[in-house]
């Protein structure tokens, strides 16, 4: 009977130690410092884990937060298609066949855009400026009736114009130790469209590009734990304060019915960037064909049709690689549709984790390159399909 004493001690020790472990993970020795930003018509948060009572570290965080603010303002000034003084606006305003001097941010973002445009066969194309504007997604008013939707002949013109993005060329030169960057429009982009000329909108990768820069700044200032989230669509993660653990990344549920959970899936992440695109953000509902059923018009424009994506893919999340690339890739996968996206993921995205949510005739589906053990399904309405590689879907 005396052996009962060690057994009781064991249970007692567990009861005492387990809450202690949980408490230490909760941040007894450190805490998160925040800073919020409102730029590019969206919000961003910088969240860095710091040692409690370390004044030098607190000051370093303040300096980092200030730098991130400056960086975001700089990116907006470079990439905004709505700001007439931005470098992208200067490029948009230039005539066919002319070269425009741009800054480093615009050059790098355009380089990523060109790279993903080529990789995806044009499924990611930032030259959908006119369609974005026609559907009211650049801050304008969306159409309120079918009659207000853009006419098919206008959309056809926009599609033809967007094809010219493949002909945009970039170059850099160094004179007397100063680097200069240039972007040139191809000739005759406006030949078929009368007054209109090629214009681009880098909204599809702007947040991801800024998240990459913030990630670099966090490292430069010597912080290893925390993350930078931009508009909840691009996040650059550092390590989790307890290095044996990870952040829990919950992917928003794009089809809520009042009872369903806010997220459809939870996976662990650390030291990587994540970007997502979905038709549940910035959209309007409209009965365009008079059948009494409203269709969803989202801000993601299919460059091949010039119209909002309506192909059954409702959200795509990509992790691994740079956030700007992930941002563009998630947009491209939305455009490709389920079958095209699965083929592309198998052939070209071997090193990245992808979660694709679809609305199919059979119901909601979730396709992922992750193994079942790598995530938990939060919303059981989604039928899970693991992309097994080699074009297979298990």
């Amino acid at each position, binding site marked *: 009977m005396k052996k009962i004493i060690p057994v009781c001690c064991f249970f007692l020790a567990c009861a005492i130690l387990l809450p202690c472990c949980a408490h230490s993970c909760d941040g007894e020795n450190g805490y998160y410092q925040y800073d919020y930003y409102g730029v590019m018509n969206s919000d961003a948060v910088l969240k860095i884990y710091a040692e409690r009572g370390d004044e030098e570290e607190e000051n370093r965080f303040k300096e980092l937060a200030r730098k991130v603010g400056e960086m975001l303002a700089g990116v907006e000034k470079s990439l905004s298609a709505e700001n007439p003084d931005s470098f992208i606006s200067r490029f948009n305003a230039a005539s066919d066949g002319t070269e425009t001097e741009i800054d480093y941010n615009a050059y790098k973002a355009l380089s990523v855009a060109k790279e993903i445009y080529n990789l995806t066969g044009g499924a990611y194309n930032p030259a959908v400026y006119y369609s974005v504007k026609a559907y009211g997604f650049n801050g304008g008013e969306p159409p309120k009736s079918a009659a207000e939707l853009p006419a098919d002949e206008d959309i056809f013109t926009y599609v033809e114009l967007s094809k010219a993005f493949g002909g945009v060329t970039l170059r850099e030169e160094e004179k007397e130790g100063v680097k200069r960057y240039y972007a040139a429009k191809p000739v005759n982009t406006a030949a078929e469209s009368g007054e209109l000329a090629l214009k681009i909108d880098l909204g599809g990768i702007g947040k991801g590009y800024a998240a990459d820069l913030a990630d670099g700044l966090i490292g430069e200032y010597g912080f290893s734990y925390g993350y930078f989230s931009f508009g909840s669509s691009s996040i650059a*993660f550092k390590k989790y304060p307890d290095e044996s653990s990870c952040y829990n990344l919950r992917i928003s549920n794009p089809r809520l019915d009042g009872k369903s959970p*806010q997220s459809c899936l939870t996976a662990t992440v650390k030291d990587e960037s994540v970007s997502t695109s979905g038709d549940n953000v910035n959209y309007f509902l409209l009965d365009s064909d008079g059948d009494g059923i409203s269709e969803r018009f989202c801000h993601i424009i299919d460059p091949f049709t010039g119209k909002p994506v309506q192909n059954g893919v409702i959200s795509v999340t990509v992790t691994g690689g740079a956030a700007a690339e992930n941002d563009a890739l998630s947009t491209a996968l939305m455009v490709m549709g389920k079958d095209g996206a699965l083929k592309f993921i198998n052939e070209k995205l071997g090193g990245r984790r992808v979660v694709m949510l679809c609305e199919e005739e059979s119901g909601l589906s979730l396709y992922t390159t992750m193994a079942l053990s790598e995530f938990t399904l939060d919303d059981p309405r989604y039928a899970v399909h693991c992309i097994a590689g080699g074009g297979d879907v298990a």
Partner: protein
Amino acid sequence: MSLEKVRQVRSGRFFRPADLIIYGIIAAAAIALFILFFAIKKDGGLEGVRIFVRDEVVFEYSFESDEYKVFSSCAEVVNGEKLTVNITTEEGGNLVEIDRAARSVRVVSADCRSRDCVYSPPLTGADGFICCMPHHMRILPFGYKDDGKTVII
């Protein structure tokens, strides 16, 4: 303890029938406590919300008591089938809708450019929040705790 006694203990079996009964009782107690814990634990539904403007609570509503409190003139309430709260800040306004039947809270309109808060999923539990950065307005559920570990994209 004599050496004889030590030898007796060492030679004895670890589990005697009486020991097993005690272990069984402890295991049963542990299982009972586990079940009890989950039985009395709330189902995670939304109990209520607080609306903050620039870190100041301006409005509070409890689904449990169906009572609300207004702490600032920037929150105006219309009490109908659904409770609507008109938040007016220096930067602009948001219309928040509290659906008693669905036990959910969402932002139905905002006069900012991004309208991210309008597109945010409705709050249905204590594990999320809605934020309108341009207006510095946040809606947090009762019991919301930022564990610093969970991030929603």
